[in-house]
């Protein structure tokens, strides 16, 4: 059984905060390491996500190389590039850990963390639209190619124009779907009652409390190291 999603949410929140706040490649290293360990321990499909992002990796590595090139001094350049890379991997791993839960569990967690229900519901609706968006976009992509547009042969300017055309049908369909959904929800009296029931409320088990203690200890340890480091320098 998985850890309570509330604990994971807290962990991912702290993780991404650390990933954004900390600057240097060396400071980010322990954060990255803990993200890796947690993701593997939580049996998040890390490998699958990394493989899916295979195309992106090439871009990431070239960005790193460019950073290194343009910041003059090779050593600082490499360190800056590495930091960018680490930060992205940390954020991706955080996302992966959350993606391992079904959407409704995350919404339930947000509700029980006393986030406004509207906000939590919006997230769940957003998640549910993702497959439809991706199918609509795939159809548009093939339709464009069937109409004789060959992306590889286009010049940069024409390619950009085609990309904006490509996004049009998906965005338009998204807006129209959102309007319909909003109307349907109004008609059903969404938000009319102060209190509402949950089908499957979450309960912390001893194992979850243990995990929470672990997360807090980890955050405290990380902050302590950070503070000591600053003093030492």
């Amino acid at each position, binding site marked *: *059984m*998985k850890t*309570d999603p509330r604990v994971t949410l807290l962990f991912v929140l702290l993780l991404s905060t650390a990933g954004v706040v900390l600057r240097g490649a060396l400071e980010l290293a322990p954060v990255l390491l803990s993200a890796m360990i947690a993701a593997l321990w939580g049996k998040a499909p890390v490998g699958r996500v990394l493989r899916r992002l295979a195309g992106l990796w090439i871009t990431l590595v070239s960005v790193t190389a460019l950073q290194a090139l343009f910041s003059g001094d090779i050593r600082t350049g490499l360190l800056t590039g590495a930091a960018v890379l680490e930060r992205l991997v940390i954020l991706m791993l955080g996302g992966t850990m959350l993606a391992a839960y*079904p959407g*409704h*569990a995350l919404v*339930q967690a947000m*509700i*029980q963390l*006393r986030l406004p*229900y509207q906000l939590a519901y919006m997230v769940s609706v957003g998640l549910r639209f993702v497959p439809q968006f991706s199918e*609509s976009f795939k*159809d*548009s992509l*093939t*339709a*464009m*190619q*069937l*109409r*004789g*547009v*060959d992306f590889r042969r*286009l010049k940069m300017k*024409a390619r950009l*124009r*085609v990309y904006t*055309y*490509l996004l*049009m*049908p998906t965005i*338009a*369909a998204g807006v129209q779907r959102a309007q319909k959904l909003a109307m349907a929800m109004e008609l059903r009296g969404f*938000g009319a*009652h*102060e*209190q*509402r*029931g*949950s*089908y*499957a*409320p*979450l*309960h912390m*088990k001893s194992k979850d409390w243990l995990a929470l203690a672990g997360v807090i200890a980890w955050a405290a340890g990380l902050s302590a190291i950070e503070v000591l480091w600053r003093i030492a320098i």
Partner: protein
Amino acid sequence: MTIETKNLTFTYPGTGFSLRGVDFSMGPGACAALTGSNGSGKTTLGKLLCGLLKPQGGAVLFDGEDTAKWSLGRRGQRIGYLFQEPARQLFAPTVLEDLMFTQELQGISPGEAEARAMALLARFELDSLARRSVLTLSRGEQQRLAICGLLLNKPEALVLDEPTTGLDARRKAILAGVIREVLRDGISVLLISHDAAFVKANAQREVRMEQLNQAPLASGAPDKSADSLGWIEGGSGEGAGGVHEN
């Protein structure tokens, strides 16, 4: 153009729905109908014919030539596909621009591109809408515009996926006119539809999907949503139905 499939096989990884051993053929210059119940795989076969899906076994042949290695652009020169959702294949903000931009990308001069676009629009009674936004078109108008976009490529065949959905009797009559117009150009039409009357009136031949597909009917693919609820049931048990503040 003669379109054939030989022992075609395809399975969706997500749901496990599969087509197996599909042998289908249609000759040039005629309208054939593909019918069958919802979820029998009509759209899937249509997408396989046009290369929107890749067969996992067997082949799709155009005039006897295996199309497996063809690019989408090359297929689009021979066959056009009208989506069940025509809005997915309309890209530009206005009706006229939607027919012009592909031509301009192919290096046709704006003057000639516009002339060709306007001629097509006039033929399908869309010329008065040339400056309209594609988003404000009715479903029937979107379909006709999408068909115009396909015809710019001068294809030899069109696959129309459920084109009568959401059309009233008058719009259906207009669509029937469009099909006749297309056939007059020597373009063959595969009409995917379960509108029996429309099929009877417009198609010379009818093929049922259930007869083409040799795969045994899948009985209930595994339900993912029940699966994902599994862990939460273990976690809550007795507490189901609790109340919290909104």
